[in-house]
């Protein structure tokens, strides 16, 4: 069986960034496996700009951002296989995959899983009503539009205010479609503020907060209309608030879910982010198997994805040099009041690191609060926030010396005044 020091599963932003960093750290025996016929992942269909402000200090489109990485991968001569689907990972890190040349198994000393995420869809949210065509996830409509030159409809309603939905509201408007509105179940938007302004307000598209689609109607096979209704604090429909919108398209932008299928038979645990439980180097409970990017937790900015992937690559470097011991000495990291999830899920006592990075999202919007990070009862750091929203990930770096790491829980919570 062929062997590699590092096999990277998924050649999107996270996968390529991890590969380049690993190479620079001296790990040269790398194989990237990618199911599409191109590197770059989801960014290839994001032809709008707004990528790379942190990474390159300039605004790029998705494909431009990606090509800087794929160029580098090619320059360094990092080995990759396209049109190649990974079918399984075993506990002893044998990776099986399939492509037109055959069905193969390779042995990896270390693996980084960077398989991204998928969109929650009509099935997952048990959308009520008929089952007509004309109901798509926003990303699927984006794929048809940007990669196939096809428009799925001309009179559009959007359910969910996630960023992809907002971006599609603008994109479909520019293509001549009429976007009737965007409904959001929560009393606040799930998208970035800049997208609300640039994609909805600039196009006079109304945003219906605390609203959802109660029913889709399309008995003849194609969507004809939707019934919108307001919901109460417990997300029950408020009778009498129903309004009908005639439309031929309903786009769903109701959340992204880490694509963790390949981990399902390994007996490892999953976190509230729905990605695998990991330590500060994004190593999962299976020694030598790392995860990063949207498969670990969904990111809003690709810049954060590529930097997280570099941290995972550093973990791989330590692991391959026997400097990442699999000790039982660990301190759990837990999200408490007001915090949705935190990455990492535990900190291992290792001599190498000087800083610990915590990434998390609040569970709902807050104003004038403190974010408090504690170890046991001891407050390690308190950060004041004028305003904080779930759609923007928080990244907090803390000097490791401030922690004892003696097994007491580390917690992250919101302290209201």
């Amino acid at each position, binding site marked *: 069986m062929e062997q590699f020091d590092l096999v990277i599963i998924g050649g999107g932003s996270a996968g390529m960034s991890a590969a380049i960093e690993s190479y620079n750290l001296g790990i040269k025996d790398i194989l990237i496996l990618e*199911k599409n016929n191109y590197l770059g992942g989801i960014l290839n269909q994001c032809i709008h700009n707004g990528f790379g402000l942190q990474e390159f200090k300039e605004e790029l489109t998705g494909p431009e951002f990606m090509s800087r990485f794929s160029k580098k991968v090619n320059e360094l001569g990092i080995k990759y296989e396209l*049109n190649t*689907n990974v*079918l399984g990972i075993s506990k002893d890190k044998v990776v099986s995959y*399939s*492509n*037109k*040349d*055959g*069905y193969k*198994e390779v042995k990896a000393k270390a693996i980084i899983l960077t398989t991204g995420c*998928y*969109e929650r*869809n*009509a*099935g*997952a949210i*048990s959308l*009520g*009503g*008929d*089952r*007509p*065509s*004309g109901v798509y*996830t926003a*990303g*699927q409509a984006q*794929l*048809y*539009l940007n*990669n*196939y*030159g*096809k*428009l*799925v*409809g*001309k009179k559009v309603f959007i359910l969910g205010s996630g960023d992809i939905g907002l971006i599609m509201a603008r994109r479909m408007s520019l*293509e*001549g479609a009429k976007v009737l509105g965007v409904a959001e179940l929560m009393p606040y938007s799930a998208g970035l503020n800049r997208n609300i302004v640039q994609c909805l307000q600039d196009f006079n598209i109304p945003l219906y907060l605390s609203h959802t689609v*109660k*029913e889709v109607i399309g*008995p*003849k*096979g*194609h969507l004809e209309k939707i019934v919108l209704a307001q919901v109460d604090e417990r997300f029950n*429909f408020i009778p009498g608030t129903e309004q009908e919108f005639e439309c031929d398209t309903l786009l769903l932008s109701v959340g992204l*879910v880490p694509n963790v*299928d390949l981990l*399902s038979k390994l007996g490892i645990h999953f976190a509230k982010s729905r990605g695998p439980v990991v330590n500060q180097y994004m190593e999962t409970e299976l020694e030598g198997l790392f995860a990063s990017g949207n498969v670990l937790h969904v990111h809003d900015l690709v810049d954060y994805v590529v930097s997280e992937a570099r941290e995972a690559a550093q973990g791989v470097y330590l692991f391959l040099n026997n400097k990442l011991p699999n000790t039982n000495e660990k301190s759990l990291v837990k999200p408490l009041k007001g915090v949705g999830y935190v990455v990492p899920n535990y900190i291992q006592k290792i001599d190498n690191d000087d800083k610990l990075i915590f990434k998390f999202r609040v569970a709902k919007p807050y104003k004038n609060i403190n974010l408090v990070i504690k170890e046991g009862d001891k407050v390690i750091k308190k950060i004041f926030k004028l305003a904080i929203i779930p759609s923007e990930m928080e990244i907090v770096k803390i000097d490791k010396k401030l922690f004892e790491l003696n097994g007491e829980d580390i917690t992250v919570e919101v302290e209201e005044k």
Partner: protein
Amino acid sequence: MLDVILIGAGVVGSLIARKLASYELDVLVIDKENDVGNVTSMANSAIVHSGYDPKPGSKKAIFNVKGNAMFPKLCEELDVHYEQNGSLTVAIYEEQLEILKELELRAKENGVPVQLLSKEEVLKMEPNLSPEVKGALLAPTAGIVNPFTLPVHAMENAVDNGVKLHLGEEVLSINKINDGFEVITNKNKYEAKVVINAAGVYSDKIHAMIEPIDYSIEARKGEYFVLDHYGEQLVNHTIFPLPSAKGKGILVAKTTSNNFIVGPSSEPDPDKEDVSTDKATLDNIRKQATLLVPNIPFNQVIRSFSGLRPTPSTHDFIIEPSKSYPSFINASGIESPGYVSSPAIAEYVVDELVSKVLKLNKKASFNPYVRKRVHLNELSLEERNKLIKENPDYGVIVCNCEKVSLGEIKDELSRSVPPHTIKAMKKRTRAGFGKCQSGFCQPLVLKEIAHKFNIPLNDVLYDKNESFIAHYNTKSED
């Protein structure tokens, strides 16, 4: 003049067609849908019931028990996933133990082997059941079947053996003519000596086209959740509550693809086309099911759906010639346990009823087997590699969730009942049936269908005639 026109290509119609194909007959099957098995036969629990609970002596009891015994061979010949995993009917309250004993007696009358289990025995078999269970009735001959491929493969086998199939064609009226019937559709007119009515929820309407009828078929809707197969093994047997007047109740079952289904509800629906779902019903299903299996991971739900039972006012299957004409044969009101009964119904309809009005000569060339499909996950590494060498398309995975290869997609398109729609492809291969619900693979499948039938991408349908997908060109494409 044709020998037989068969109306309806659900599981009942498809199996009748296959049976007819084993005789020297000129047969035309007509169905209004764009695919075979596209109505009730694709939206049900797909349980090959043991047959312990229908009323002894009823047609339901007789055909169920007989049909159940036919499944292993049938599914072998037609290359359909089937598993005899047994069912457990579970008592949650002390007083239900008495009812289990009555059911045991009923099973004996129907000739179905069953076994009463104690609480400990049940929980050992199914550790995820509620600790409240008091006992259960095990029916080891119950099974599960892939409900999507059985009608398709049966019809493929019928067509391979000479039956003609017209999809997307609706029967509008039927007239009695001299030595047969004239069948008028939205597209054409045909004459046949014999007409067989297997029109599901509309079988009353079809029957009423030739004579007044004194029964009706009501559609009773059943809604479900489907859970992904990447989670933990929830149950191994089909788990039923005790049956009630409304039916077999809300079950928790694994499917042949190791997904899990939870449902169905049971409510009359005046609209025979309505397969919508609604939150209140689904919420109630959730509540009922958790009484049996408390920790159902509802965050693994990938889809909800509903199906319509063709429930006859007579409370039993109607499998007989019409009153006025022995050559107009009804297989009507086939509600649950209709799926499991269908092979036995087909045999009876042809060998006992058609044989009375047409001379049946066995077709020497009849081959009961469909051309074998490739089942990638059942192959060893070597076998898989050999296959990919012969045809590299089997190495290219199109649907990431369900791991369906381009080779399988193209193979389906090359068959005698090929999928013309995205949904038809989904039923055959599972491409798009997984957790992302075709978010990634749909355009790839669309391209293959467009290419095969030589139509623009814009015209490929999801299912019904108006269900376009990538219908318009963008400004730059135009």
